[in-house]
């Protein structure tokens, strides 16, 4: 409302610098390389070719897969919200016995994903899974393939993508003013009524933000449909992957990716609009910390407990299995005949016996840490700029910064290699292809949209008067950002950093084209050690790497959440105030 004019934007040298740097970065690394690649793909002979459109429209399989991807995304937008909100409520809102342990169980999706997660569920519920086997012992008529297709994919992906709910919805919940709940109760509102009319509406902006992320995950679903989808439910991502690796078919990949990307942008624009139509942050001067709610109805209480623990078991089992399987011979796992003899340390010996096994870990930790810190640091400034100065320039910038959500990582990586393989004036005449910096740039790029969205949401929850207060006391925008605003969004920023770090740690798609030969990252190393034609222990070795990754990621999450994190801190602070009374 206040400072929307161009003049105010260009008055502060600080803002001008940030704007210029952002413009340069967006032009150099987001627009130029990708436009370059897309023009080369869509205009092969200097004029637009409708080949890709025609091919795709006439392919029943492509149309089906595309439809499946959208169906999956739409379904997940609902199911993930249901499950995600439920687990946030049972861990942070309702008084549930053992909530802390439940939290840990639900949090397992923070530290693993992808093929390992899908395989984990397949080992339990799949055709040869032990739950399926056990049930079939009693009811032989049950279809052994019951856990496949749309249903299975939705179930697994729903459970796997509640991560964002846990982290971001959880912290939004903590910010709700408890007095509003007390007031509602006073006026006779039921537990459900309060939840429905007070708590959930207050969480709306964050629910929107995570819904966009969920939708996006659904559209890009790759491994879960491959492993569990069967022939009836394949999605578009594997096709995009295949096509982007072939020069001749890259236009198809790009077209498909752009279709998915446009859908995301439309959703984003819609959410932006809805988001603007309300004031959500607490206006109370003295926000009372949230206290956990007892569920008064004993039947409902029991039901919620049962559901919470059932979900806990479903969440925790695959992780336990993966840890267990990392100690089991591969053939025993796949043939489903595990006995005491199957246990072995061979898998670990293989991994640690590989020369320089530690080096990829170090390389990936450094790359991921640098990239996550750089992207969060940079986006702190940029999201602030976009939030504070709304004009056509910043609006355009904001949409351009979402390019990495539109294009698959593989295409972004290829575009970077091909653009920076000659001296480029935009980067001071340097050649970046073949240097260690290009992978870092790619990592920063792919994490921009996620970081930007969540930081913007975090900044939006800071009352504007804080800034005015700092300004009238003489603080410049930089000083205010550093001393007043950043400390407030720091918990969110730390969570984003940790998530970025964890997801980059085993990246393969960007690394494969960009890594410097002497600095092999982990994703490539894992792939190399599991891909050999004679390497039959690939699944076990993947499990070993997963276990090692879980250790690193778990440690990262511990740094962010276990110590200064929102949930524990809330507990200790509450404890302190109680003690003081």
């Amino acid at each position: 409302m206040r400072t929307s004019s161009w003049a105010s934007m260009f008055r502060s040298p600080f803002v001008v610098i940030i704007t210029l740097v952002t413009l340069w970065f967006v032009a150099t690394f987001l627009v130029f390389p990708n436009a370059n690649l897309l023009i080369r793909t869509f205009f092969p002979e200097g004029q637009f070719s409708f080949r890709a459109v025609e091919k795709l429209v006439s392919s029943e399989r492509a149309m089906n897969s595309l439809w499946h991807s959208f169906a999956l995304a739409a379904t997940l937008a609902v199911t993930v919200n249901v499950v995600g909100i439920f687990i946030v409520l049972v861990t942070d809102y309702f008084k549930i016995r053992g909530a802390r342990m439940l939290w840990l169980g639900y949090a397992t999706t923070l530290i693993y994903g992808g093929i390992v997660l899908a395989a984990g569920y397949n080992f339990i519920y799949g055709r040869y899974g032990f739950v399926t086997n056990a049930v079939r012992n009693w009811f032989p008529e049950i279809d052994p393939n019951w856990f496949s297709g749309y249903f299975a994919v939705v179930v697994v992906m729903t459970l796997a993508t509640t991560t964002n709910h846990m982290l971001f919805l959880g912290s939004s919940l903590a910010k709700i003013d408890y007095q509003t709940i007390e007031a509602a109760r006073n006026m006779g509102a039921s537990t459900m009524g309060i939840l429905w009319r007070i708590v959930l509406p207050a969480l709306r902006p964050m629910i929107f933000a995570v819904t966009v992320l969920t939708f996006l995950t659904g559209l890009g679903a790759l491994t879960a449909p491959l492993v569990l989808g069967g022939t009836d439910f394949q999605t578009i991502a594997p096709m995009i992957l295949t096509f982007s690796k072939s020069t001749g078919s890259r236009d198809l990949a790009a077209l498909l990716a752009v279709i998915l990307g446009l859908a995301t942008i439309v959703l984003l624009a819609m959410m932006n609009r809805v988001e603007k139509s309300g004031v959500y942050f607490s206006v109370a001067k003295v926000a009372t910390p949230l206290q956990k709610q007892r569920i008064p109805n004993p039947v409902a209480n029991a039901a919620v407990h049962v559901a919470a623990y059932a979900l806990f078991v479903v969440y925790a089992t695959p992780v336990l299995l993966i840890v267990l399987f990392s100690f089991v011979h591969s053939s025993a796992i796949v043939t489903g005949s595990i006995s005491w003899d199957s246990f072995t340390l061979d898998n670990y010996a293989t991994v640690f016996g590989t020369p320089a096994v530690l080096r990829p870990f170090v390389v990936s930790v450094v790359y991921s840490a640098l990239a996550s810190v750089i992207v969060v640091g940079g986006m702190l400034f940029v999201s602030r700029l976009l939030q504070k100065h709304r004009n056509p320039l910043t609006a355009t910038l904001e949409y351009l910064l979402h390019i990495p959500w539109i294009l698959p990582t593989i295409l972004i990586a290829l575009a970077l290699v091909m653009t920076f393989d000659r001296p480029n004036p935009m980067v001071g005449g340097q050649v970046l292809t073949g240097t260690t910096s290009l992978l870092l740039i790619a990592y920063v790029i792919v994490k921009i949209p996620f970081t930007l969205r969540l930081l913007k949401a975090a900044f939006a929850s800071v009352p504007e008067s804080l800034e005015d207060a700092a300004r009238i006391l003489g603080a410049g925008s930089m000083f205010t950002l550093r001393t007043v605003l950043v400390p407030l969004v720091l918990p969110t920023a730390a969570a984003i950093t940790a998530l970025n770090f964890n997801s980059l740690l085993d990246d393969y798609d960007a690394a494969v084209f960009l890594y410097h030969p002497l600095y092999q990252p982990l994703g490539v190393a894992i792939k190399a050690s599991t891909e050999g034609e004679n390497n039959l222990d690939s699944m076990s070795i993947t499990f070993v790497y997963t276990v090692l990754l879980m250790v690193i990621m778990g440690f990262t999450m511990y740094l962010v959440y276990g110590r200064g994190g929102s949930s524990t801190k809330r507990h200790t602070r509450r404890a302190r105030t109680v003690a003081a009374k």
Partner: protein
Amino acid sequence: MHKRTLTAATLATVLLSTVALTSCSSTAGEASSSGESSGTLIVYTNSNSDGRGEWVTAKAAEAGMKIEIVGLGGADLANRIVAEKNNPVGDVVFGLNNMFFETLKAEDAVAAYTPEWSGDVDKKAGDAKDGAFWPLVEQAIVTVYDTNTVKSADAPKQVSDLWDDAEYDGRYEVNTSLGQATPQLVLAGLLAPYADEEGDLGISDAGWKQVQDYYEHGSPAVEGTDLYARLTRDEVDYGVLPSSGITSRDAEYATKTGVISPEDGVPYVTEQIAVINGTPRQEQAEKFIDWFGGAEVQGEFAAEFASYPVNEKARAEALPEVVELIESLPKQDIDWSLTRERISEWVEKTELEYLP
């Protein structure tokens, strides 16, 4: 406030120490950044798994060559080399099959060089016309079954029986990851007899019918599950793999592999080696090729990794069962230049129209 500072400090410490770690290692390997004519030779390969990469590195070191293996899957590696062609990072590439090398040659990403051992290999197995790449190892792409469960007599005589005969419906595995080398070779093998200039993408309708039937009646491969695991738990009876994978699988799964040997032969692929165009270490690269493709190293390699070398002098060192298998399988006649030219369109058509 205090707690937060502590976390930030811990994070910073972790970061700094890791940065310090890499900066140490970067000084160690500094001599090798691209653009210098001396230093470590960067060797690109898709044939580094199962200890091959380490073996080659160690052997090269014995011969006085300092190399660094960069191992990536076939399609990814080829894409990377093409993408980097204006400023190559790698110096030598080996292990990719002739199809990929045809692509590299067409993109001017490899440079012609005639190795010392050129006389010991069948020129036709490589790039007979221009000598841009040279053959190292041969492999057959075979359809296998487990003789413990399927009697040799019951196995089909022709691969096409699998989809023509209802008896095998859904009992053979088809790999749908057409971005990978082996499934592409299978496709090339299926289409090779049906080359027809009049047909769609140079293939007659009968050929496309074959592809359609092949995928329609097969059981799609399961991501993360090996063919042999599926064979042993009776999910499928037949499947395709490169011949070099058989020995180790029989040992692991206690299977006894039978191979379908059709009259028309099976697709063979030849792994090649070449200098990457534009490398500043041309001389070293050539030296490496002379060394690695020579009879001595190829022989040792064959004995170690059950490969079938193209180098005739090295073949004596190859494992007898490997030699026996390869020599029992006739070579299918495949027009590789047509395949190279058309394969990406074939893959695209198959992906769009025929995959389940």
